[in-house]
């Protein structure tokens, strides 16, 4: 009841939606870079949306299924293959014991997600399965996956998933659902995205030239970016006058400007507090699009109002709620319809 890692890939970690409730103790939230994709992957295999899934970056791992399982792949398209054959994303796939999942060239996006029905069996640390590598806690032994790691499944497959093995033709190693989620519901992933931003608490401390440049110029995501933050290169942003700020809370999507003048966008593994001026805050609904942009991508910031941002937030939640009920029906139907 497990998968075995035969190649670890660039950075493969177990993540869920994050470790909340301990930021007042300085504990980093961590969790998935693309919340939408992780939630979708879980819903596609009938899991609660917060179950732990594998987060796979750019160059994916090679994984052997040591037991029959149902999986879903979402987020970045890293050319996933099962036993050498291309496998479509954003739908459930039934795989038999011994099937090998590997990845090829990254086609689009940075972070792919692999969910399995029932999820992975790892102890929760402070209420979460998310890996926080810098403190060596959570996930799989507090670290990225390595060769020969064996990750056990939770032994809680639903009744419907249990029936799938009998439905897969004997000559086939895997069976792909003949339906997938509508692409319309996915975030508008783009190579060079425009992300919507609210002015940050220190926005007005910046010079008018810097404010204009922030909205009107391309920024490039630097290669020195990681799960903690995306560094950007572009016009240098300056304050009207030097200011000494007291440390305060920062969050996923906070655009802070250190003295170099090059904005850093805080990502899933951001520190809980910081003292740099915050020029903007990427809206929650666009964080998946931002996260999936690659080093070297061009980035534009588009100003929206708080009302718009919260409306978009609620629309995304509503979409996911509808999707959840639609999927649970569809999974039932598919199971009974498989020949």
């Amino acid at each position, binding site marked *: 009841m497990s998968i075995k890692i035969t190649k670890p890939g660039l950075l493969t970690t177990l993540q869920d939606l994050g470790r909340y409730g301990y930021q007042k103790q300085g504990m980093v939230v961590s969790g998935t870079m693309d919340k939408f994709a992780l939630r979708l992957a879980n819903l596609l295999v009938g899991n609660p949306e917060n179950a732990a899934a594998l987060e796979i970056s750019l160059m994916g791992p090679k994984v052997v299924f040591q037991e029959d399982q149902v999986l879903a792949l979402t987020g970045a398209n890293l050319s996933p293959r099962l036993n050498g054959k291309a496998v479509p994303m954003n739908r459930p796939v039934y795989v038999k014991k011994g099937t090998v999942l590997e990845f090829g060239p990254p086609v689009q996006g940075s972070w792919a997600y692999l969910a399995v029905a029932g999820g992975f069996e790892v102890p929760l640390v402070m209420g979460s399965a998310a890996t926080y590598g810098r403190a060596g806690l959570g996930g799989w032994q507090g670290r990225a996956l390595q060769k020969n790691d064996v990750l056990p499944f939770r032994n809680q497959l639903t009744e419907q998933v249990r029936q799938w093995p009998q439905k897969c033709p004997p000559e086939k190693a895997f069976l792909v659902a003949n339906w997938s989620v509508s692409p319309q519901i996915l975030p508008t992933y783009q190579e060079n995205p425009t992300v919507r931003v609210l002015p940050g608490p220190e926005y007005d401390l910046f010079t008018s030239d810097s404010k204009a440049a922030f909205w009107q110029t391309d920024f490039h995501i630097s290669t020195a970016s990681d799960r903690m933050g995306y560094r950007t290169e572009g016009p240098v942003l300056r304050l009207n006058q030097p200011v000494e700020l007291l440390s305060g809370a920062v969050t996923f*999507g906070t655009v802070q400007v250190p003295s170099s003048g090059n904005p850093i966008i805080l990502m899933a593994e951001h520190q809980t507090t910081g003292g740099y001026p915050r020029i903007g805050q990427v809206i929650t609904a666009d964080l998946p699009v931002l996260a999936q942009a690659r080093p070297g991508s061009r980035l534009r910031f588009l100003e929206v109002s708080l009302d718009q941002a*919260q409306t978009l937030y609620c629309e995304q939640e509503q979409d996911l709620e509808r999707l959840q009920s639609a999927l649970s029906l569809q999974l039932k139907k598919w199971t009974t319809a498989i020949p």
Partner: protein
Amino acid sequence: MKPTMSSVKIYPLGDAAIVLQLGEEIAPEVHERVKAVARYLEQHPFTGLVEYVPAFTTVTVYYDPWLVSQKGELAPYAEVERHLRQMLSQLPASAATAPAQIKEIPVVYGGDFGPDLAFVAQHTGLHPQEVIALHTQPQYLVYMIGFAPGFPYLGGMDPRIAAPRKQVPRKVIPAGAVGIAGQQTGVYPLETPGGWQLIGRTPLTLFDPQRESPSLLNMGDLVRFVPITEREFASWKEGAYEH
């Protein structure tokens, strides 16, 4: 008792957080207000509250706009702001709690445990023993926890032992290292790189994810450093002095 929290500034941090700014400077009175707000939120969580983060002058409240919108009459931000303003109008300007217990942090000063004690002594023109005496003398106030899991921002250091950061930060600072940077003193909870002048080391575990309260210190705690010997440090590590 001053019942006013009328001068509070309230502003959004993105679409899922709101900041209560309760003062402009690091000061015990401002800290009392931060503590009062934190205590209230701890005891009276509202629908959609995710968590809150107290800092020197602010409390940032994270909320889920979707959950708030299902319960509230106003748009999510307006709803949360209304709720928090109502809270502030009822809140005394001080937490009015019993004085915090003083937590003692045992420290071996100097030697391999505090390789920069000599530098701090030289920089300040004091004898190393005087640096230790001045460092162990005050009661420090934990204004906030941040930067790293369990890392306390302490107020109250004697300015006579202030020392600049190292020009070249160390690649590895061990967990428990006690250092000075400018006017600040602190303890590293985890092994990290860093530029503080290290004057000692505590055997206590400042952050343990398996503990019910993972961080040993919390905002509002009072702290005192107590000198111990290397032998006591070793026994402590073996668990002889647990509890």
